């Protein structure tokens, strides 16, 4: 088993517009990218449970071979910058992805 943290160069989150949060998981090399993709561990259900969402709320979950990257897009809790904002740019919400375990 290896964690996503160990298999990747970059795991980041950022807003995609004021209403959505998008994650990029960029793998170190083609082998680990394929292993992660083929393992089918990262699913909409997993993301929904980590981020306290309904499964249908996971809007995008796609694998991009050219960038050896996985992209996930979910709704933000509140529109960016409204009172009560925790993270204006949505840049610090990625940590939950780091400990996802992938069988190698």
């Amino acid at each position, binding site marked *: 088993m290896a964690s996503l943290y160990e298999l990747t160069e*970059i795991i980041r989150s*950022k*807003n*995609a*517009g*004021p*209403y*959505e949060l*998008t994650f*990029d998981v*960029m793998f170190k090399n083609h082998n680990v990218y394929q292993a992660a993709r083929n393992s089918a561990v990262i699913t909409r259900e997993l993301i929904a449970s*980590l*981020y*306290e969402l309904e499964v249908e709320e996971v*809007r*995008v979950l*796609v694998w*991009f071979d*050219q*960038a*050896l*990257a996985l*992209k996930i*897009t979910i*709704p933000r*809790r509140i*529109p*960016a*910058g*409204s*009172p*009560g*904002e*925790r*993270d*204006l*740019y949505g840049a*610090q*919400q990625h*940590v*939950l992805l780091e400990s996802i375990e992938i069988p190698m």
Partner: protein
Amino acid sequence: MSDSVRVLIPSGLLGFGYDKELFRSALEESPDVIAADGGSADPGPAYLGSGKSFMSRRSTKADTAPLLEAAIDLQIPLIVTSAGGAGAQAHLEWMVSIVREIARENRLSFALGIIAADIDKDYLASRARSEIIHGLGHVDHLSPRDVHRSAAIVGQMGWEPIVQTLKAGAQVVIAGRACDEVGIAAYPIYAGFPKEHALAMGKVTECGSDCLEIPMERGGDVPVFGEVEEDGFIIRPASTVEGSRATVASVCKHMLYEERDPLRVAIPGGVEDSSLAAFHQLDEGTVRVRGTRFVLDPTYKVKLEGSAFVGYRCISIAGVRSNEMIAQIDHILHKIRDMVRNHFSDLSQDNYQLHFRVYGKNAVMGSIEPERDRVPHELGIVVEAVAKDQDTADSVCKYVTGTCLLHMWYENNRSGCSGNIAVPFSPEEIGRPEAYEWSVYHLLEVSDPLELFPSRIEQVG
């Protein structure tokens, strides 16, 4: 027509700074145009709503002056989009005044094109009454109420108003809110090169050196060249930059940035489709991209952004070191909400909002924080009160910080209520920034890409 158009992009955001030496040596490579994006909606609705510019005047002027001087010296265009950050009237005028000031100080003379992006509220409200205007990323249709309560509304212009302003003779174009890539794509399109390559190149380069691999120790932004050709485009850093390079990986990685679906990016007029694009490492620092497509929308749609004033705010910050208080903080904050409800019983609860952020516990991630029950040795509590008038916001904030946090009783309070928190500042209230929220974020159909974006040309100097 020459084989290609070379666009020089000095940085990802005008005002963030860029390496002036690298910029100067990039000029020796004969760029055909300099393009700089001035803004973004990322910093939230307050800049649009209040009319404040995102970057300071000082840093914007420092970044703009070399660009303007170079453009006039080389007799090439300079295009700045989303001026002042949010790109509404106040921000556009602010940016134009900076440009005029630089021109005066350096005795520069040129035709200045100014393109506005403000949407008239009566016009938009009338359309909202008579048709369904769909929301982006959220489900609500645009209501006339949301239009009227907005302090400012802009549309993101496409490349068409910029191309038209160039055709009308402008050398320097200062545009209000625009789609991120169009300021960079406009001149290549004006020069007759394919839109699908110009726009895709603009998408890659609109954040400046973020599309490059840069050695960590470099620090400042590296200017980028984007060259549009008949059958594709080329990305590389400005010349003579040691260790900085465009790679297939760095270009592809950047295409993911801030996009919900990077292979198909919607812009005014259509979709940039890079699902069939081929990326090739030409040499160590240069990437060529071919095969990007632009799929025309049957109807032309403009993304609208609008910001509405929510209320006045008062913010304070307090440190906690007492272990007993740290251990009970959730319960204490819950109790404080009850105390506030009682103390301000004359106010209905939709007259004010009270938000806590507990740093050291779960301020950043809230309820999904897996470490929220770990007990740290120190907490930072940020108190945010929002209300319909400043006095109420101040009162709620002061009551929470002074009466409650500083002096309240809690179980096993070993310092006896004399001082439960460490206040870093006098005055305690660290800010009163007005609160705004996004009130419009919708797609509007138009029959003409120019109709919402009037432009004018003035001779400067």
